[in-house]
């Protein structure tokens, strides 16, 4: 008996229509995902955003123009001058290789797409594929309707969009897609016990290793899943086949990437996978031997043998780690466990803004309603607890922890939140959309057991977005009818209830649709306002409401490009290194790769010391120009004076005797730039460069720094060893030129004084003998 009368169709029509609708829905989801990432291109232009993508773009340009072999062996003499950078061996080449392949395919089809456009639009393109991969994975967990929900969630969730807008040409653009597809293939391999899928998982894992440093997440998630299954007593030969195939082929493949090298057998991050692999071999061996001998004693002894060898293996790994044969956890990953570690020992890691802990509002902003559907979905996983549900539970727990530790790792949390929320919402909608009515457990013995079977085609609703699977409904109906036949004997009420009333259903369904609409509106708003700024170009509003574009960065970089010799070396803080290399095309001293702490500390020392101390450092490194960012005129708070304390800290890490952080604070411990500023602060190169001639803008009254909200002293700083070369329109970027040595061999301060007309003190000959007694 059905609650509603629905039209009847033949089963094959229904299945075909269902698949067609699913395909259309996925295509629409992909379209939505791609178009919501195009705000930046529409508002500004097709430009590469941020900092890291500029380096990836340069590398891709080399790949596109010179071919793969040259790219593989590319030595970049303009980065980290004069150390150079062996790019071929120090990057994850997956992203550039993907762009290169797409570029070559398009050109082979005679579509002359510029490499910049390929790079800018790669991330949106792959986001469509990520939606499809999430659909496939959630389909394994529950059913197709949950899959579609998960696909649309991840298609527009701001947590993922933030790293994959058009123009954000970074490793995460393809890495999240690879993450999802690797996990999906792993779940398929586990379900089927198939070596084919296991090897495919290994191949996609290899692609992931080539693409992103976060591959360690997969390297530890899959073993953790296998280990928990073992602890739950769910060892099976399917698990053995899938895991062994994935580990053996995947680890060997991952070592092909030069940047990874021998790490998979030598570092702690990869030891969990090796440990679980060994454990699986032992358990499989013991299982097979056990099947041949029934003796209880032998079996007990086998069990003890297993436990003992497992513990011995674990101790061996620990021992090797202690003796440093296996490298301990590197700073990047160790700081996830010990959150205070980075600030003390590796200030560079602690200073990156993406590595700060997550604030609570960030969860809501990035995930909206999904964040409170997420625990419900995880609990629903506990109800069925198949192997794939165990995986989702583990993934959810680990990802929640990591997302709480570092803002950047919200990205790995977003897929599992989308999947779990989809499961929860889909279960809710299933219950309230189901038109099947349970049979009443009353006196007449014969139940309409045949009725559910005949009613199955009619029960199916044909709704636009949500689709009920015919098989699932039939199974539910069959289970239900089995339950009712069982209860007939027991005369106990059935555990399954249905929702009859149309009004009850409407309330819940309309509420759910309202929340989904709010979700879409929120995501679109967050994407357009917060995550679509190219950060190379700033936009603000004038008092009359019109938009004011601040293009100082590009103005300054292009000045450098057009007015300086090709081999002029530019020194700046490492944040801007990639942008200078990409847009100004000049050698830089340090850049965002931050691989050499001492070099960065040298730059920090040069910026925070007085001119006399900095000048020899500048000349030794052949620095011709210094570039700083100063936001005091228009109130841009991401400038170098705000980052100055990090420069001091990093320099102090290498030269603790010469640079001391307390020297840059006032005696009361405040960070001031006005006349109370400490001597070290006033004499530092960064202070002088920022405020040089700043008081000329204020014609008489003292200068006011709008970021620090302090008034500067009346006398501005004087520069002897460097001279101003360029200041951009809003004084955001200031470029200084380093003077060459004085022709007469004097130090530049006295040379400048002489040019200004000052006279030196006369000197007298000193005695070489002891005093004559008069």
């Amino acid at each position, binding site marked *: 008996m059905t609650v509603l009368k629905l039209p009847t169709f033949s089963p094959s029509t229904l299945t075909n229509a269902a698949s067609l609708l699913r395909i259309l829905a996925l295509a629409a989801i992909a379209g939505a995902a791609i178009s919501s990432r195009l705000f930046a291109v529409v508002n500004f232009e097709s430009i590469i955003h941020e900092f890291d993508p500029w380096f990836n773009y340069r590398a891709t340009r080399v790949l596109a123009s010179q071919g793969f072999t040259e790219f593989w*062996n590319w*030595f970049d003499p303009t980065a980290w001058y004069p*150390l150079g950078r062996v790019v071929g061996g120090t990057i994850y080449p997956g992203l550039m290789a993907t762009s290169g392949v797409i570029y070559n395919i398009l050109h082979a089809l005679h579509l002359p797409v510029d490499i910049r456009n390929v790079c800018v639009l790669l991330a949106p393109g792959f986001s469509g594929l990520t939606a499809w991969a999430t659909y496939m994975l959630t389909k394994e967990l529950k059913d197709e309707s949950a899959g579609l929900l998960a696909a649309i969630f991840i298609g527009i969730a701001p947590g993922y969009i933030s790293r994959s807008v058009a123009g954000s040409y970074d490793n995460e653009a393809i890495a999240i897609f690879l993450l999802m597809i690797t996990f999906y293939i792993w779940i398929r391999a586990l379900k089927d016990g198939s070596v084919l899928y296991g090897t495919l998982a290994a191949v996609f894992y290899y692609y992931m290793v080539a693409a992103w440093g976060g591959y360690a997440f997969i390297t530890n998630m899959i073993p953790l899943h296998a280990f928990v299954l073992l602890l739950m007593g769910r060892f099976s030969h399917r698990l053995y086949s899938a895991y062994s195939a994935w580990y053996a082929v995947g680890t060997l493949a991952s070592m092909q990437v030069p940047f990874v090298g021998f790490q998979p057998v030598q570092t702690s991050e990869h030891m969990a996978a090796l440990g679980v692999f060994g454990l699986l071999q032992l358990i499989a061996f013991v299982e097979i031997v056990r099947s041949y001998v029934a003796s209880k004693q032998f079996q007990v002894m086998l069990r003890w043998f297993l436990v003992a060898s497992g513990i011995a293996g674990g101790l061996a790994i620990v021992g090797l780690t202690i003796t440093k044969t296996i490298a301990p956890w590197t700073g990047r990953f160790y700081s996830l466990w010990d959150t205070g570690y980075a600030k003390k020992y590796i200030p560079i890691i602690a200073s990156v803004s993406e590595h700060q802990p997550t604030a609570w509002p960030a969860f809501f902003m990035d995930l909206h309603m999904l964040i409170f559907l997420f625990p419900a979905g995880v609990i629903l996983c506990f109800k069925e607890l198949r192997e794939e549900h165990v995986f989702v539970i583990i993934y959810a727990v680990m990802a929640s922890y990591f997302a709480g530790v570092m803002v950047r790792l919200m990205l790995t949390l977003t897929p599992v939140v989308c999947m779990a929320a989809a499961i929860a919402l889909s279960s809710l909608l299933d219950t309230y959309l189901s038109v099947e009515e349970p049979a009443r457990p009353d006196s007449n013995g014969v139940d309409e057991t045949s009725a559910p079977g005949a009613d199955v085609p009619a029960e199916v609703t044909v709704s636009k977005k949500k689709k009920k699977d015919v098989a699932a409904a039939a199974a539910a109906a069959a289970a239900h009818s089995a339950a009712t036949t069982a209860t007939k004997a027991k005369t106990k009420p059935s555990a399954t209830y249905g929702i009859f009333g149309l009004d009850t259903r409407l309330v819940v369904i309309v509420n759910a649709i309202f929340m989904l609409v709010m979700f879409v509106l929120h995501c679109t708003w967050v994407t357009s306002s917060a995550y679509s700024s190219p950060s190379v170009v700033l936009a603000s509003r004038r008092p009359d409401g019109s938009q004011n574009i601040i293009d100082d960065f590009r103005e300054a970089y292009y000045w450098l490009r057009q007015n300086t010799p090709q081999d002029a070396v530019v020194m700046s803080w490492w944040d801007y290194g990639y942008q200078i290399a990409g847009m100004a095309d000049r050698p830089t001293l340090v850049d965002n790769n931050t691989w050499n702490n001492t070099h960065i500390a040298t730059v920090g020392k040069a910026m925070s010391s007085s001119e006399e101390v900095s000048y020899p450092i500048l000349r030794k490194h052949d620095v011709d120009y210094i570039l700083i960012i100063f936001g005091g005129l228009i109130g841009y708070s991401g400038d170098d004076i705000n980052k100055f304390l990090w420069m001091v800290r990093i320099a102090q890490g290498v030269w603790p005797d010469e640079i001391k952080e307390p020297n840059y604070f006032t005696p009361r411990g405040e960070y001031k730039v006005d006349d109370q500023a400490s001597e070290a602060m006033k004499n530092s190169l960064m202070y002088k460069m920022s405020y040089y001639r700043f008081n000329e803008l204020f014609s008489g009254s003292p200068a006011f720094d709008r970021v620090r909200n302090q008034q500067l002293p009346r006398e501005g700083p004087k520069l002897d060893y460097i001279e101003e070369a360029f200041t951009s329109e809003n004084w955001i970027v200031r470029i200084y030129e380093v003077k060459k040595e*004085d022709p007469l061999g004097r130090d530049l301060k006295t040379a400048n004084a*002489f040019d200004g007309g000052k006279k*030196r003190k006369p*000197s007298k000959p*000193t005695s070489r003998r002891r005093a004559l007694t008069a």
Partner: protein
Amino acid sequence: MQPRLLSWLGIALTLLVAPAWAKSSTGDKVLIVTDAKLEMSDYSQFWDGLRSRGYELTFRKTSEDEPATSAFDVPSFSHIILLAPSAKTYPQDLSPQSLVHLLSDRTQPTNILFVLQPSTPSVPLRDLAREFGISFPPPATPLIDYFSAVSPANATSLLLSPPLSQHTAGFESGKILYHGISHLRSSNPLLVNFLNAPPTSYAADPLEPADAVVEAAASGGEGLWAGGRMGLVTGFEVLLGGGRAMWVGSLDLFADAATSIDGEATANNAYALALAAWTFQETSVLRIDAVEHRRISESAPREQYRIKDEIIYRIHVSKFDPTTGEWVPTSEIEDMQLEFTMLDPHIRTALKPASEEGWYEAQFMAPDRHGVFKFIVDWRRKGYTALHSSTTVSVVPFRHNEYPRFLSSAWPYYLGALSTSAAFVLFCALWLLGGDEEAKKKKTQ
């Protein structure tokens, strides 16, 4: 009439004595700045000597503005002789700042010869000299020496024997008459000592010569301008391609009256002309003509070398020959060094003269580190032009297919991998061939 005849005779003499023709490597035009008190005819032998070397002399007084030293930022003269030691003020284009600017111009440097009067250098010159690291004694204290004086009564006129050096070519031997002041040199490495004061000399007021010693004794020996440390003639080479300057403490060194004393001829003229030759960049002038670098096995230079490459570096140096006015290759330099530097020199090796005249070469293996390196030749010797050359190249690591392959120590691994593959193929064959067993079993069951 008499002076004119003498001057013609002087020309003839100079033509016999001095080299037949001598040119400067930087130009012919000389500007001589004098003041109103001096008579140019008193120095006629010096001018004739200069003219005979091919210089064009232009005279100007400090009170005049024309001819200017530079027009539209282009120097008009290659050399300046400042013979106005008592002028209180100089015109704008001869101010101390402008003179330093003219000296430091890399493309067209101007060489300057500063000549000072016996007693008191003028204030602008005093201040300018301090920038060069040269300090003068208090006013009106000429150099006094009782041991090398011409006569005990005239203790300020000294007969000195300048040392012979390759920088004063043209001066063979002899004594010169010196009547002037000494100065103190700082430790600036760009100063070149030409003539030091005699060890028994000191600077004092000739009327009260003992006062200086007494005062200095009271302050423990400080402030006594005495001894062989004091300089009389000091040269100065501006860094990296600028001009040369020279400070001479005696105006009378150039005078005609000083060419003979008590009937004996002194070597003043030859010495003065030798000093001018050095200052005007005739002698001891070197330059780098060409720099080559390549792999030993190749013939063309490269922008990128590989680590552990054998590299050969060659440099060509030539010297200016004032007699012919040509640049002639020279292999005289014995201590030139090459540094292969990335922040600090990784390789420092000697550049030895090669078989061809003027070429020096060095051969070395590129270091094991990759990076951006520079070939630096930085040769500085007092009196000679500094040679400096810097060439930037990259040193890249091995390409992915340049590593050694098929190592003998890896044969067990090659064997293992090959045997596994072979066994796999064999196993597949066996499995496929024995495929009927399953079907047979099923049939029998």
